């Protein structure tokens, strides 16, 4: 079942410059953070979103949660468009969809206790009707669900280690039994063993509570391990999308291939010849014409400069935007 269906989403950021900048200076600049992205997330599965700096994956996530204004397009949550929902439906969506932020400390108000932080969504849903005892029980239950000691509830976020802070964020995210959670770099800044604990926890929660994850990460090994489906983004566009195992085995897009080859591997069998890309990632303000990847692509052709490659279905739900596979 389609839980989230994004159609032609565009999120542009316009720079606020005075009107004189039209005549002098560099003129108005627009950042094409998310440029015509369409994807579908299936219920109960984990969808991985990978890409490097400037690819737009964080902006895409922020747009889904309406933290950033979309320029055009539709995002359907079940059968309603999030971007055009009325306030009652929006409230329902906001409780059914939760976020886990990249900065595990920054996402918690440093002046609130852990208990207050976790209780905030609970209080919102109940409109303050929950009595103190019931609230405390619920907070305790959530802390235990993430393997934290219940007496953490009276402590402040800065008293916890990175992994524990991350788990508090998870406890807050699952407080309202959400259907959908977006995890933005959930293990950034964590040690290997702490990250393993968090990954195990999130898998357990998914099994128990049937949560759908949007897993945004630049760590490809982790995305390969956690996600069922995934999409690779570059400069605001999706270059390849499909089932995770298909993408890793076929690597249809040259960027995907370079990206996966660049990931350093421990075991000798997995180590690949790294494909080094020329130059730096272009700025999203003035992306290259035609295919955005052409300035660094080892397989670039004449066509790539003038024609933007559409996302083609290679079969079995595996999509790729590259002229190499475009037989038109």
């Amino acid at each position, binding site marked *: 079942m389609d839980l989230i269906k994004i159609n032609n989403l565009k999120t542009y950021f316009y720079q606020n410059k005075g009107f004189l900048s039209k005549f002098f200076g560099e003129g108005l600049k627009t950042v094409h953070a998310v440029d015509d992205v369409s994807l579908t997330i299936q219920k109960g599965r984990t969808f991985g979103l990978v890409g490097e700096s400037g690819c737009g994956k964080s902006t895409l996530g922020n747009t889904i*949660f*309406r*933290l950033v204004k979309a320029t055009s397009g539709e995002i359907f949550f079940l059968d309603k468009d999030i971007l055009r929902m009325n306030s009652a439906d*929006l*409230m329902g969506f*906001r*409780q059914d969809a*939760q*976020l886990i*932020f*990249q*900065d595990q400390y*920054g*996402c*918690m*108000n*440093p*002046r*609130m*206790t852990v*208990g*207050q932080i976790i*209780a*905030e*969504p609970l209080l*919102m849903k109940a409109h303050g009707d929950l009595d*103190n*005892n019931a*609230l*405390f029980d619920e*907070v305790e239950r959530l802390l235990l669900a993430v393997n934290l000691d*219940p*007496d953490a*509830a*009276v402590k*402040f976020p*800065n*008293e916890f280690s990175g992994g524990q802070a991350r788990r508090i964020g998870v406890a*807050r995210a699952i407080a309202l039994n959400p259907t959908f959670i977006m995890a933005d770099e959930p293990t950034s800044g964590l040690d290997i063993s702490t990250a393993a604990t968090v990954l195990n926890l999130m898998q357990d929660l998914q099994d128990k509570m049937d949560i759908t994850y949007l897993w945004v990460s630049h760590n490809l090994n982790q995305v390969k391990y956690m996600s069922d489906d995934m999409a690779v983004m570059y400069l605001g566009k999706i270059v390849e999308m499909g089932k995770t195992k298909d993408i890793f085995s076929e690597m249809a897009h040259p960027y995907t291939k370079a990206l996966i080859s660049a990931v350093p591997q421990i075991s000798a069998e997995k180590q690949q010849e790294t494909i080094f890309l020329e130059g730096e990632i272009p700025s999203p303000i003035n992306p290259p014409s035609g295919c955005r990847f052409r300035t660094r692509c080892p397989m670039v052709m004449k066509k790539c400069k003038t024609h933007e490659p559409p996302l083609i279905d290679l079969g079995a739900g595996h999509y790729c935007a590259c002229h190499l596979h475009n037989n038109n």
Partner: protein
Amino acid sequence: MNMTSTDIIQKKRSLTPGWTQNLTIIFKSIAKKKGGLIGCIFITIMLLCAIAAPWLAPFDPNEQNIVQRFAGPGLTHLLGTDYLGRDTLSRIIYGCRIAVLVAFGAVSLSSIFGVFLGVVAGYNEGKKFDYFIIWLFDIVRSFPQIILALAIVAVLGPSLINVVVALAFTAFPFYGRIARAQTLSVKETDYVKAAKAMGQKPIKIILKHITPNIMAPVIVCLGMDMATMVIWESGLSFLGLGVRPPTASWGIMLRNGYKYIQVSPWTIVWPALAIAFSMIAFSLFSDGLRVALDPKERNR
């Protein structure tokens, strides 16, 4: 603090440390640093004087005793008497009351009003309301503070309340500017984003998330401001535009003592020292308070 599960069951179950626990922690933190401790003690003395003036003062501050005028410090009048024979010590103690009232009153009024406007303006950055508020702040600030205070008191008439109102009016833009600047950065934090993503109402976000986190510089400002307000009040009273005589205020005492400085310098020294004392008290205390209220500093 380690609360075992039995504690949790037996005591009132709460998600925050209880307010008595909070207060003790705060005062312990303040007392840890020497500056904070001294500030605390001084302020306690001042509050004591202000509240218990009728019981502490050895004489009636307005009781004149011409025979004993210009007495130096002695056994009956510990700090001497002024030009009308009134006991200086009692007047200092009652003057403390005025100082405390003006300091707390003016600062509370200006900070609440200023911070409120500043936070709302900052939260609505870029919108018309924000521009209007900044314009308001700038207009008030462009007047030299003393001219503005004098003008307001002159219009409303000299009295304690009018002094408080005038001082509050000159000061609110400073709080507003600080609050707005802090709000601009706090509203970009992840925890505000998290609250928004949860669907929290703007008013709740402002009250629960933004305001507590902008208070640190505001509190430092409060402390310094309280000291400044005492100076202002003395200044206005000195000029005759503050509290009306015969109320004992340190500023009025300065005014009276100034005339007779060659006859009896004592009459000007004591109020000056009292003013200095209060400034030190407020500054040290406010700095200690700021450190103590920061949860990150709690466990040091």
